[in-house]
């Protein structure tokens, strides 16, 4: 028989290393010779879109078009330490570091502009679109390009550091504030279980993810789709066949991850509620997007067949066995 079921899963996720461990990101911003701005951070592009998102944060803070920004994150001899590209922390932590560095950099630019424009002070100087000008007397203006000609490469620069605020937990009671910020989500799925083959087919999925603010909605959706697929593999397909410490399924013909035909369109909903400590309110979502999917699938399987599966992965074989055992148990009663 083919039986349909629906399930929901929720999760929350605390960003960062946590537990009072110094979770620092550093960024460096420099005026380059052609008036472009270099942003140097150790935040790695693993495919998640860090380069793009972090550039957007820099661009927004500097009010400078993206094509005027050079983003360098590859070489330890050039860039400061921005922590690991993990714990969903790059957007929040390194994003904040870039924002701080860019604000500091703007002040360095204002200082330089004050000197060149022979002004008394820096206040009232707006930095925008590659220029610094006095808001109430716009004739007083100077471009990044002109400044870079005067000061040369490497002379106007600023740094920024962001350290997340977390508190170590008590070793006996576990009380403390281990992570910040927290991210929330909910995923609902509808699926069909074939009670003869044990195959589970996902028919529909609705996924709502809190992001604080989406820096780049397409990239958020890409993470949500990818997280869903990874969770689908986790719960239904992937099995290392670990026996006595040996991985028997050590290749892609045996370790099955979802193909395009196993995935479906996901109805992704981005929920925004800016987080006050975050850069433009944006929280990290790289990990959270995988978390609620598995339990939603498991709850939907129960809804379909009335059998709780408490062990992963839910391979067809395990599912059939669970149905059989459940049948026997019910007979005994």
């Amino acid at each position, binding site marked *: 028989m083919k039986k349909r079921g629906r399930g929901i899963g929720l999760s929350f996720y605390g960003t960062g290393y946590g537990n009072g461990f110094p979770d620092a990101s550093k960024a460096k911003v420099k005026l380059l010779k052609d008036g472009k701005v270099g942003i140097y951070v150790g935040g790695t592009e693993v495919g998640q879109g860090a380069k793009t998102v972090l550039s*957007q944060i820099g661009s927004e803070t500097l009010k400078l078009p993206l094509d005027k920004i050079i983003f360098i994150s590859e070489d330890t001899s050039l860039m400061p330490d921005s922590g690991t590209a993990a714990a969903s922390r790059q957007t929040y932590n390194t994003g904040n570091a870039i924002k701080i560095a860019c604000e500091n950099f703007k002040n360095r630019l204002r200082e330089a502009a004050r000197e060149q424009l022979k002004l008394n002070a820096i206040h009232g100087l707006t930095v925008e679109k590659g220029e610094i000008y006095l808001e109430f007397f716009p004739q007083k203006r100077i471009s990044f390009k002109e400044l870079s000609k005067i000061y040369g490469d490497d002379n106007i620069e600023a740094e920024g550091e962001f350290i997340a605020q977390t508190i170590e937990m008590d070793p006996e009671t576990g009380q403390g504030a281990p992570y910040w910020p927290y991210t929330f989500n909910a995923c609902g799925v509808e699926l069909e279980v074939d009670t003869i083959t044990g195959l589970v087919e996902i028919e529909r999925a609705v996924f*709502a993810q809190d992001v604080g603010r989406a*820096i*780049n909605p*397409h990239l958020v959706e890409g993470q949500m789709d990818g997280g869903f697929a*990874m969770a689908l593999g986790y719960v239904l397909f992937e099995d290392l066949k670990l026996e006595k410490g040996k991985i028997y399924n050590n290749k892609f013909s045996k370790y099955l991850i979802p193909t395009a035909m196993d995935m479906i369109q996901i109805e992704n909903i981005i*929920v925004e509620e800016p987080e006050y400590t975050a850069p*433009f309110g944006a929280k990290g979502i790289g990990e959270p997007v995988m978390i609620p999917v598995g339990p939603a699938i498991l709850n939907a399987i129960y809804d379909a067949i009335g059998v709780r599966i408490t062990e992963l992965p839910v391979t067809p074989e395990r599912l059939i066995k669970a149905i059989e055992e459940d049948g026997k148990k019910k007979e005994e009663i």
Partner: protein
Amino acid sequence: MNLDIVGRNILRIDALSKVTGKALYPEDIFMDNMVYGKTLRSKVPHAYIRIDTGKAEKIDGVIKVLTHKDVPNNEHGVIFKDHEVFCSEKVRRIGDPIAFVVAKNKKICELALKEILIEYEEIEEVFCPIKAMKEDSPKVHGDTNIVYHYKIRKGDVEEGFKNSYAIAENIYRTHMVDHAFLQPEAGISFIDEEGRVTVMVATQYPHYDREEIASALELSEEKVRIINTNIGGAFGGREDISLQIHLALAAKVLNRPIKAIYSREESFIAHAKRHSMIMKYKTGADRDGKLLAMEAEIVGDTGAYASWATNVLRKSGVHATGPYFIPNVKVDSIAVYTNNPFAGAMRGFGATQVPIAHEQQMDILAEKLGIDPIAIRMKNIFKQGSITATGQVLTDSVPLDRCIEKVAEKIDFSLEREEAY
């Protein structure tokens, strides 16, 4: 807030290089005078070893066989320095690195690997984390296999269960899985024009790699340089050291470029896995579905090395309640060594496993109480101002209710619907 670029679908700045195939990953880098390296790995899960590289070294085209004897400081690890760069006396898992052959080409490397003689004196292994916790179990490191024990003690769970109308009790088991990023580990090392030991690699954290290499080679960090290439996916699987120190050491010893590329099969045994967990849960709610108490015992198998085990099991423990306010909570989250593949970071980092338990617990309670899965959740979820099980106040940006509403708008979970179990 007036935003120009934040919130816009800016095209990825690395997309053009990737769609044209011009994006370079470590295996795409070729250098003059370059030679190849390949790792010899343990075939057994727990044994004392004796290594004889003599025969391999004599093979024509073999340039060097590196072992623990060549490493100034033979240890590394993200938290505990429990990994050896090359195993010196003991292997603790299948796949532990023992030697690194450098040869003129890949074929000679393969040939030489077969000629390195490893004498294994096998010792009793332990694969079950529950068994590993016992005093009389074989020890993977030192005199206990318990790496970490995180506790939450909040309120009085016994009292909470006493007052509960419905209680759900279950044991949930999750398995080890692999990141299965598409690009297997690869790297190339050389001495740069300023004399720095340089490794081009696909890594999640270049500064950490630099620190570990500097420490293992006993160099100052300024003498080590990491260049991150494009990275073919990571998901946590590129946090621990894999081939970075091997390559750096080879470049330092040989003063020429060395390249190493893992096959898919080697990739599977080289990097960490997601922790498998055994999660014993007991959750109680009152007649209205308000959660009163939760008790969870979580045992995570970190395999042969700790990697991030402390942080992963801590994250499991902190997230064990799920996004719900529960007045009485008792959590024990324990990381254990075994002779399995080592576990470390993977997307969700301990917070991915616990919802497999707590979300099914919620549905079980809902069914017992005859209320629908949305209703029971809405009664208990974190809202602005809620206090977590660790006593943290969620002061800002807690739109979980909105997330649930959005999902429930599109999918009907009510008990009245047809087909509801």
